């Protein structure tokens, strides 16, 4: 957190209303995002129990798992989810195949309520992408395909500059500071309470209300423990019993009971999911209402290219992602993420005065007035004279740039300026800059291309240019310090001897004990 965002939090607490910490929007918001709200069984690494999903806010689709501990039920859920997600993705990859370096005109965008949803997405992807589609335990082909795509989106969510997967809490808290702590901002309803409280409530009241799971169901993926205890346990038990009804007439009756209970289960889960559904779409609206920053479209183009590339890879029979990156791949990926972060920081600063203000606080940028300008200065040292105007700015800001440093101004991002010298006197610093580009071709500067006296300008050491990651050894040259060359990646091996759910599930042993105790168990300690 920076001093400026801390100050904004303090102002928000004082005024009882969230404060903007960004002047423009720095994420892309699709015209038709796919909102996904997953719910999972508490305690399990990845046992989905329901999801509300759709790209039309007036028509959410509710998927429900009859018994989250049952293998067939879980794969049925995965297949239904695949139907919706792959259908949505497919609509963005339906047109004519773009040329090598081109991209589809638009890319899919997933919007989840919170970071927990991303973890769930990653784990669901992990648990489905290696599933065999033939032989014992076969699943529909859509299931591993879903697994690959969910893994792809969860991985893209790690990229600071990517908008392919957004979380409502993440995107909102990147643009607004609330009068509560960052930990409390993880609650979507509370966060929105500060940004846009429901009519008749103050922000504080709305945030408090959001913490009462009885009146405001959690946005998942975990459900409210009291809801588990009071509602889910009984319904799952009823479904399990109806399935164990026996053969013949009893089985028919059992199936009828199961359908009845499923209707009840759906009703309960709809009640739990609908408030969050509305909140996520409200978040989308709030973000969309902010003007987009100058570089948002450029970053979305990178996202479209990435999406196009992955769609092509899968279509050409690409493997599911490995469980863990090999050493060289991991190092390359980290370097790439760091480079992207630096570029994003610079882009946001150039697009947004509130972000640049943070750099002005830390000395990575300064703002000053031009006190001297030599627009026609020529550098005669080489074979041919070059136009190299000098300007001198005076500023009260701290200047950390050393002579020789290359600076840019957000007002003239295409113009390189090198620091010639700095001199500080009585708390004011004079910085002399040599302009090196962006003045036209001749030996006289194009009109308006050189700042004039009295102009107020901001300069920064932030650079918009992407710093390519350093070279890494090829896979086969992985040094011994990093385990040596990794074995050839064979995705088929990864699925072997890995039951989606272990033996404890298969024989149902603990399923029995589980439900019994869940019913008997009172208030947990």
């Amino acid at each position, binding site marked *: *957190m920076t*001093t*400026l965002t*801390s*100050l*904004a*939090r*303090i*102002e928000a*607490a*004082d005024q009882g209303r969230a404060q*903007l910490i960004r*002047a423009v929007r720095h994420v892309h918001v699709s015209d038709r995002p796919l909102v996904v709200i997953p719910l999972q*069984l*508490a*305690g*399990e*690494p*990845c046992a989905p129990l329901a999801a509300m999903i759709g790209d039309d806010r007036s028509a959410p689709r509710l998927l429900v798992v009859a018994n989250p501990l049952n293998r067939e039920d879980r794969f049925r859920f995965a297949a239904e989810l695949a139907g919706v997600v792959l259908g949505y993705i497919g609509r963005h990859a339906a047109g004519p195949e773009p040329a090598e370096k081109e991209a589809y005109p638009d890319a899919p965008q997933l919007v989840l309520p919170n970071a927990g949803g991303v973890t769930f997405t990653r*784990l669901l992807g*992990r*648990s489905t992408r290696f599933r065999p589609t033939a032989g014992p335990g076969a699943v529909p082909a859509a299931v591993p395909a879903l697994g690959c795509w969910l893994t792809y989106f969860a991985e893209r969510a790690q990229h600071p500059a990517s908008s392919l997967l957004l979380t409502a809490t993440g995107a909102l808290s990147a643009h607004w500071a609330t009068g*509560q*702590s*960052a*930990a*409390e901002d993880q609650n979507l309803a509370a966060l929105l309470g500060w940004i846009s409280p429901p009519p008749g409530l103050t922000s504080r009241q709305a945030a408090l209300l959001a*913490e009462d799971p009885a009146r405001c169901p959690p946005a998942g993926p*975990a*459900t*409210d*423990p*009291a809801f*588990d*205890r009071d509602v*889910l*346990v009984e319904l799952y038990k009823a479904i399990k019993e109806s399935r164990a009804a026996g053969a013949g007439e009893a089985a028919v009756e059992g199936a009828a009971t199961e359908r009845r209970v499923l209707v009840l289960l759906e009703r309960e889960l709809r009640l739990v999911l609908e408030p969050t559904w509305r909140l996520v779409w409200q978040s989308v609206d709030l973000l969309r209402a902010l003007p987009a920053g100058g570089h948002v479209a450029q970053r979305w183009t990178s996202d479209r290219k990435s999406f196009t590339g992955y769609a092509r890879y899968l279509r050409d029979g690409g493997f599911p992602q490995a469980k*863990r990156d090999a050493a060289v791949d991991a190092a390359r990926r980290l370097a790439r993420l760091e480079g992207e972060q630096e570029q994003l920081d610079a882009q946001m600063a150039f697009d947004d*005065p*509130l972000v640049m*203000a943070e750099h*002005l*606080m830390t000395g990575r940028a300064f703002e000053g007035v031009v006190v001297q300008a030599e627009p026609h200065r020529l550098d005669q040292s080489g074979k041919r004279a070059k136009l190299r105007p000098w300007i001198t700015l005076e500023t009260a800001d701290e200047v950390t740039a050393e002579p020789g440093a290359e600076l840019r101004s957000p007002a003239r991002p295409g113009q390189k300026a090198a620091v010639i010298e700095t001199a500080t006197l009585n708390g004011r610093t004079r910085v002399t800059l040599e302009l090196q580009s962006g003045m036209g071709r001749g030996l006289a500067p194009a009109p308006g291309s050189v700042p004039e006296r009295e102009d107020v300008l901001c300069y920064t050491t932030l650079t918009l240019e992407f710093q390519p990651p350093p070279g890494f050894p090829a896979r086969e040259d992985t040094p011994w310090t990093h385990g040596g060359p990794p074995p050839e990646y064979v995705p088929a091996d990864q699925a072997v001897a*890995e*039951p*989606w*759910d*272990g*033996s*404890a*599930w298969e024989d149902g042993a*603990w399923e029995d*004990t*589980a*439900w019994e*105790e*869940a019913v008997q*168990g009172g208030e*947990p*300690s």
Partner: protein
Amino acid sequence: MTAGSGTGGGAGQGGTAATERRLAMLRGGQLPQAHNARTIAALASNPGCARRAVLDAAATRKHELAAHAGFPSPFGESPFTRNRDVAFERSLKDEPDKELLTLLRETLDLDIAEAGYTDLNAPGWNAAGASRDLAARHVHTRQQLTAPARQRGTMFDHPLLTFRVGGRHAYLEPDLIAFRHDGTFHVVEIKSFAVVDGQADGAKVGAAAIQSAVYVLALRDLVGDQATVAHETVLIAPRDFSFTPAAATIDVRKQIGALQRQLSRMDSIDRLLAQVPEGISFSLDRDERGVSRRHPDDLLRDLRLVEANYAPECLATCEMCYLCRDEASGTTGALGRSVREEAGGIESVARVLRVAYEKDPLPVPDDIAEAAAILRRAAALRRAALGGLG
């Protein structure tokens, strides 16, 4: 995760009679609440909080107090989570000489020949820890664990340790203790959160590590110089999406160090009690049907007489968090430790803004001069940037 962990009373051998009387009065007839590794870990996470220290020392039931005072605590455990915990632990312990032993043998290089499983819950005491005589159980644990090495087993289930915290003793029940025949004990923690592709939720592993550290300290206290307790503890958790157990060793030296530092910093309970006004009580004054006769405001008033040290981190660990947060409203600390630091340590939200926007009629005192300059600069930049938007 042991179902029976946290059994027993907080009252122990420690403390003077006068202290005991004072604490019993504060508790006021409630059943004493026991410490467990989790509460000790939580206590150590905020050693500067007198309210928590006193409420814990008096072994009050904080969740009941918070609820009665109008600020029910946000913690609940899903029956699904608990069932998974119980089922996973049972799947290991029902046949301890199978998977559990194999795992520990591989992880700790245990001696095969002398492998043995000892249930420290003496005969006649059932597995749920039904014995009310905790002192007797603890003595039994001590006898078994300090017996000559030849007579010792390899795995000890249901051990009962004691731990001195805030000048008093608490009983602790680790999941399992393993003994290696090179003379070292290892604390074993069984957790039901999944380890997928060798990675688990960092927060959960961190919590397990600090709990293990508490057990290591307690076990060292028990065995004294008769044996070594390793700082390498064993975490057993289900692998990937299955129920197959996987074991990993965790070096808890860092956690032990932090714990010892924080516990030693904690004021002794006598010193804390000296600051608590005479005559206050946290009694709920229940009638025979268990209904409290105490007016919530009255309880609230007494609770507020013991100073709290609220930080948003409390929301994850302390039952009193909503009450303390309510009190801390209007302070920078309630917005996060980092916010308070960025505000130069100034407590009051209103004062920060008066300083930042230069509305304070009084001159800025020297001790916050530097912070004030930074705040004014931030305020000016913020105003300029936002002004440029209009």
